[in-house]
């Protein structure tokens, strides 16, 4: 099932932590492939290994067993890898340094690129990226991270993605800290990113409802294993794994009895 053109291809990819008796298998023998231009969601409860899998895709962890290939090659130099694969995390406040203005940190993002554009070009690209996430550049000029709200900061992370224009975006629970209105907003920007930059998005979340709405394919994880994969309709309408059924049942839906 491994396709030559896959962006990510995992073959029995395993990651263990600790040694001896205390060994923990965070990701256990996963085999999957992610094609270019797809939105794939990794769904599972807390502690199922979804974030570890996302970190392996980012090159922050190496698999202890099996392989994880990006464009048919394992990740060796993270600096080069990050030119093409970027991430958005759950808590935007811990992603920005409190002591520097937001604009200067957005400027620092250019450091990852091979060739730094001219000073004028940098300013222009930052302004365009800010407008793309619906923030007027003068609103954040001279401001520090703690002066903005959670929703605004999350949009700053997305603005960074607009600046760097990576090929792959790994979004690790980007909406779990914000309220429902802002969530709808951020999802809109993610869709916009995908359309404008033709990006592949790996969406990590515990909310199967959210995953159902955004993705082309769902991976359901439990205890480090991918227990089910398929299109959103396949997975939600006819779930085969008991863990998927549990995840679906536990969502509070307005039209269905939830706690008996």
């Amino acid at each position, binding site marked *: 099932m491994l396709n030559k053109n896959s962006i990510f291809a995992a073959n029995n990819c395993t990651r263990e932590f600790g040694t001896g008796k205390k060994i923990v298998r965070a990701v256990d023998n996963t085999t999957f492939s992610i094609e270019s231009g797809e939105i794939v969601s990794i769904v599972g409860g807390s502690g199922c290994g979804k974030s570890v899998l996302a970190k392996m895709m980012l090159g922050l962890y190496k698999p202890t067993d099996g392989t994880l290939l990006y464009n048919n090659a394992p990740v060796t130099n993270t600096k080069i890898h990050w030119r093409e694969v970027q991430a958005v995390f759950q808590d935007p406040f811990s992603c920005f340094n409190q002591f520097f203005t937001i604009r200067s940190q957005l400027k620092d993002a250019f450091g990852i690129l091979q060739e730094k554009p001219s000073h004028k070009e940098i300013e222009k690209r930052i302004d365009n990226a800010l407008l793309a996430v619906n923030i007027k550049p003068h609103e954040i000029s001279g401001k520090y991270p703690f002066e903005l709200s959670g929703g605004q900061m999350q949009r700053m992370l997305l603005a960074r993605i607009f600046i760097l224009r990576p090929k792959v975006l790994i979004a690790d629970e980007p909406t779990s800290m914000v309220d429902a209105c802002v969530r709808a907003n951020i999802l809109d920007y993610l869709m916009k990113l995908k359309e404008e930059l033709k990006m592949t998005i790996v969406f990590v979340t515990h909310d199967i409802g959210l995953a159902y709405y955004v993705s082309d394919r769902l991976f359901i994880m439990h205890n480090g294993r991918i227990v089910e994969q398929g299109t959103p309709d396949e997975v939600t309408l006819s779930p085969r794994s008991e863990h998927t059924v549990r995840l679906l049942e*536990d969502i*509070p839906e307005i039209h269905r009895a939830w706690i008996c």
Partner: protein
Amino acid sequence: MTLFEVEQLSLHYLTRFGEKIHAVTDVSFTMKKGEILGIAGESGCGKSTLVNGLMGLFIPPLYPTDGIVKVAGESLMNRTPEDIRKNVLSRKVSMIPQGAFNALNPTRKIKDIAADVIAAHMKDIDRKAIHTRLRERFDLFGMNTEKVLNSYPIQLTAGERQRSVIGISTLLNPRMVIADEPTSALDVSTQKIVIKMIFNLLEKEIFSTMIFITHELPLLRHVADTIAIMYAGEFVELGTAEQIIFDPRHPYTKALMGAMLSAEAGQKQKKPTAIEGAPPNLAKPITGCRFAERCPVAKPQCHHTKQNMRIIADRQVRCEYAQ
């Protein structure tokens, strides 16, 4: 019997530039025994400020502007924070905080944290009696009691930690519990377990009423009996859970429902829509309806006529054009 009464409560923050920020304006409601009130609204709409006000805990820069809060007939207004901490918190009104990790001292075991709560409020009780009481109470929570009590917060899972926090806040059988987003940091399965535990405690009459604050309306439909929708410091709609969820009348409630996601079959076409714009600046005086700037059906006069609560279809709505 009315257990909890709030009348026209308004709260403000005083900034160091002498500016008054009116975070909560004109909130009124009453609660009976056994009732759960859900409060929903965007971030920054004043939900957490209201919580402090409902406990009577006014620590500068938060000040009450106007109004009364009464628990079982006893007023909580004009009292010092020390008095409130000693005589009201934990005994009459208790709060379940948002982040369980920040609420627990990382250097102490759960049993020590919990024992301190009992020891601080009951003078003549010996160590042994405290621990028997603790065990009895923690046995109700459906966890491995010994393991949890003898663990440090970091050794527990997020669900166990949140349940311990709920357990500790309800140790002294408070009349009323205010839960400020108790489940928003948990995954869906853990959330269900925690909600079940809260229902169990309510059934056993460990506490008699609860205010549940969240921004997830679908969750409130299952948890709350009545729902209040809050916007820019005001209640804009107050009614039963069925009324608010299935038949919202205020434009803001409708917009909020439109922003919700659903995993139900065949709902994928129903795209969640964000509400454009931002809430008004509460430091400036607002003359008209607070939602007018973002309201899809706003009329020109909405921008300068103040809206009052009125009753439409058996619930309170703060909009004179709502049908």
